[in-house]
């Protein structure tokens, strides 16, 4: 029997839940070994011509000594962030997370995205201070040693640049990887002191409605934050995935505002001033104010709205022949938990529900997975997420109808700093190559 015919025959036996080969998300759980045997027809083809198994050289000598700080395997050197400003010119530098080369929900510290607008300062933690002043009953300065003695909390949360995914404002789909399109979002476990604890010690003047957060970088980057957010779930974060913050993520401390625009999560945090009204700083009234088609602009966007995208497969990860694949990606919302992700293999004509990997945490990456049997023909993969507040990820057509498109196709690194959260579509051709399309 020809391989293509065998796939078709197997497909007929499996439980399809949507067009173009999408399988029920519970298929593996329910049918176990029988299903595996059916769908892995290709990979368990007779091993004619294969050499008999033998020990490789590394199995025949004692291994290396454990280093005091372990580095990943030397074979993983290609799994890196992409840099927008590798020579440190006098402009912003972005380092993007390679979502297609990692898996799970947490971003390793060395791969967590960073944006620095004037380089990363080399801060001596023993000399760093966090000052809280302004409309408080008594201004206080905290050393890192002092903060380390406070009751701490840990929470998993994503941080996303306000301009992540903005290359999709381009009139034509930019041919780029998921890393280039969506690599300015990452997720980590952050540990630190709730900001409310510190504000309780300084006391709050009833006139205070905002605070101005400022970093110790050369720009003294500053953003205004509503006091309600500061007292809700804001944290002065000291640890990232268990170790002290990486320099590019704000060492030795950053403001963490779960679910809110990345730039507001001020890094190298050195000062919080309580005030009556926002300062209208450069980054809030210029850079992250989003121009709308009519000429007005959104200010104080704050929330990173519900989004999902498929990481596997995606451009650069070509399919190697028809058969079984897992479609997988990440979904998240600044409004809370992800409640549902639907997937499509036929450009949105039919949909099937994806499995959400537990735990599904508020304002954190949720990994979704769905089994797919590719028949070797053209397919367009999409994912669509909903959050527990009832928000639905918009289609691209719906989104750009309200928010506009760029007239020219911009450089993938030269996009406007605009919030963007519509569906992403990956087209797969008969050779298994994956392209970015609008569908």
């Amino acid at each position, binding site marked *: 029997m020809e391989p293509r015919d065998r796939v078709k025959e197997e497909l007929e036996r499996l439980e399809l839940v949507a067009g173009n080969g999408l399988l029920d998300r519970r298929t593996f759980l329910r049918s176990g070994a029988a299903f595996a045997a059916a769908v892995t027809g290709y990979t368990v083809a007779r091993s004619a011509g294969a050499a008999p198994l033998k020990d490789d050289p590394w199995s025949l000598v004692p291994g290396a000594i454990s280093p005091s700080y372990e580095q990943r395997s030397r074979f993983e050197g290609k799994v890196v962030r992409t840099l927008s400003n590798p020579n440190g*010119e*006098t402009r912003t530098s972005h380092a993007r997370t390679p979502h297609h080369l990692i898996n799970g929900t947490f971003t390793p510290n060395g791969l967590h995205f960073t944006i620095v607008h*004037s380089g990363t300062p080399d801060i001596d933690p023993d000399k760093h201070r966090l*000052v*809280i*002043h302004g409309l408080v009953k*008594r*201004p*206080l*300065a905290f*050393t890192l040693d*002092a903060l380390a*003695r*406070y*009751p701490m909390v840990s929470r998993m949360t994503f941080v996303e640049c306000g301009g992540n995914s903005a290359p999709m404002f381009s009139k034509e789909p930019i041919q780029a990887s998921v890393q280039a399109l969506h690599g300015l979002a990452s997720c980590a476990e952050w540990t630190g002191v709730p900001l*409310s*604890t*510190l504000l*309780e*010690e*300084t006391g709050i003047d009833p006139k205070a409605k905002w605070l101005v957060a*400022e970093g110790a970088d*050369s*720009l*003294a980057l*500053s953003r205004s934050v*509503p006091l*309600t957010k500061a007292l809700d*779930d804001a944290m002065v974060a000291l640890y990232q995935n268990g170790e002290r913050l990486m320099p590019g993520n704000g060492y030795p401390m950053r403001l963490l505002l779960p679910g809110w625009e990345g730039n507001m999560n001020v890094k190298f945090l*050195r*000062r919080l001033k309580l*005030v009556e*009204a926002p*300062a*209208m*700083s*450069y980054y809030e*009234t*210029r*850079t992250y*104010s989003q*121009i709308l*088609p009519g*000429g*007005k*602009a*959104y*200010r*104080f*966007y*704050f*929330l990173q709205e519900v989004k999902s995208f498929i990481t596997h497969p995606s451009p650069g990860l070509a399919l190697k022949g028809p058969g079984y694949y897992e479609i997988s990606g990440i979904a998240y919302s600044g409004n809370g938990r992800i409640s549902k992700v639907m997937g499509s293999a036929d450009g949105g004509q039919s949909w099937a529900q994806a499995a959400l990997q537990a735990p599904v945490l508020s304002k954190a990456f949720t990994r979704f997975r769905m089994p797919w049997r590719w028949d070797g023909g053209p397919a367009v993969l999409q994912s669509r997420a909903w959050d527990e507040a009832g928000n639905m990820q918009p289609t691209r057509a719906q989104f750009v109808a309200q*928010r*506009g*498109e*760029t*007239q020219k196709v*911009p450089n993938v690194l030269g*996009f406007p700093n*605009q919030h963007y959260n519509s569906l992403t579509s990956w087209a797969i051709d008969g050779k298994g190559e994956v392209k970015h399309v609008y569908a």
Partner: protein
Amino acid sequence: MSTHELPAIVLALGLGSGAAFSAGPNLGTPLEPAEIAAWDISIQPDGTGLPPGGGTPAQGERIFAQKCAMCHGERGKGGVAAPVVGGGPIDRIDAQKTIANFWGYSTTVFDFIRRAMPWQQPRSLTDNEVYALTAFILAQNKLIGENDSMNAETLPKVRMPNRDGFIIRFPDKI
């Protein structure tokens, strides 16, 4: 999250510290305003925080040529860094945002120059120099007169053309 939920800490740390404001560890060091002054650089749109001093466009022109033009171009028309003079209409979503066509408040110009410029030597300018540069840029953009001096009184009164061009995205979050 509130330390009211931590009665053990109230007992352990609250009793020994007569000056304690809260039930928390109270490990912050009290500060006098004079000690904070050098860091207290944020300016409010109503002018709160603006320091004494002042400067004119003519004074600013000389400083600009010396310390700013190498990046922002001659007379601020743009170079390796963004132009600080001019700007087209905001008629497309990727229009270049400039001081003249986009910024809502004149105080932001002073605030950003003082905290961040020049790029290689931030916070090296005197307050008078920052006022003078602010005056020069505003005058070049025809937002003030050629001879208008900028100081804590006059700067907040400069009304920027795009002042009302903004919509609060999530007013319920404020």
